[in-house]
């Protein structure tokens, strides 16, 4: 039982990590395009077309696919409440990756806000 729990935690960390890597590649590909959000369908499709022709996007999608497969295994093994509460570590991975890989300026409030969200999700999921 204990070993099963450790395995599930490891799988959840793996799925979070793969998704974070995917987000990093996606964000980096998007930033290289200089697009402004619009409701113009033609512009959106042009943007998506430019985006999918970036090789690094596909590297990200491979990680996304791994993340999805692992997440499906997690869902089949673990209680949904537990899976979601443990998946809140995703927000920590994203914050660290944004800060150290994308060099985004986090600031005290953003760290504090991210921390509150993680604690909040654990409470919501486990209660």
């Amino acid at each position, binding site marked *: 039982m204990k070993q099963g729990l450790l395995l599930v935690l490891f799988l959840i960390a793996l799925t979070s990590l793969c998704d974070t890597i995917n987000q990093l590649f996606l964000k980096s590909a998007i930033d290289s395009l200089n697009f402004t959000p619009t409701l113009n369908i033609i512009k959106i499709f042009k943007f998506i077309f430019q985006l999918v022709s970036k090789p690094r996007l596909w590297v990200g999608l491979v990680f996304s696919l791994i993340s999805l497969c692992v*997440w499906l*295994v997690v869902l089949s093994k673990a209680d949904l409440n537990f899976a979601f509460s443990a998946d809140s570590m995703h927000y920590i991975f994203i914050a660290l990756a944004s800060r150290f890989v*994308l060099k985004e300026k986090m600031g005290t409030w953003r760290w504090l806000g*991210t921390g509150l969200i993680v604690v909040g999700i654990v*409470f919501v999921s486990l209660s």
Partner: protein
Amino acid sequence: MFKKKVTLKILLLLIASDILETAVHFFFKKSTLVFSQGQVTDLATMLVFLKVVFSSAFLWAGLLTVVAVFIIWSMILSKIDLSVAVPIASFSYILVPLVSIIFLHEQITALRWIGVFFVILGVIFVSLSSKERTEQAK
């Protein structure tokens, strides 16, 4: 230079992406319920598991929704920091309890309310941090 402030347009996109994301979770969970051969313990069972799951219509409905979420999410990320977009998208943790109360008449425990409060506070802090950054970036 980019403006990184969270505007109403971005907020609406985030809500749309959150609702669709919830639909994705619903479809994926439904697809795993098709698998009834017990626990996934080794690579061989995992392959059987994936084969069963990928032949479920729910999984493909989920994947189609994933494409929609991808397009909306890309538009969001074109304007704001990753470290802002991801935490703000967490307000599905607020939406789900509210929907449960209003439409499903579920009882929400005190601990869950505290959790919802923390998430709301966190989302507000992160949104404000993004505004501050725009001002700093002149």
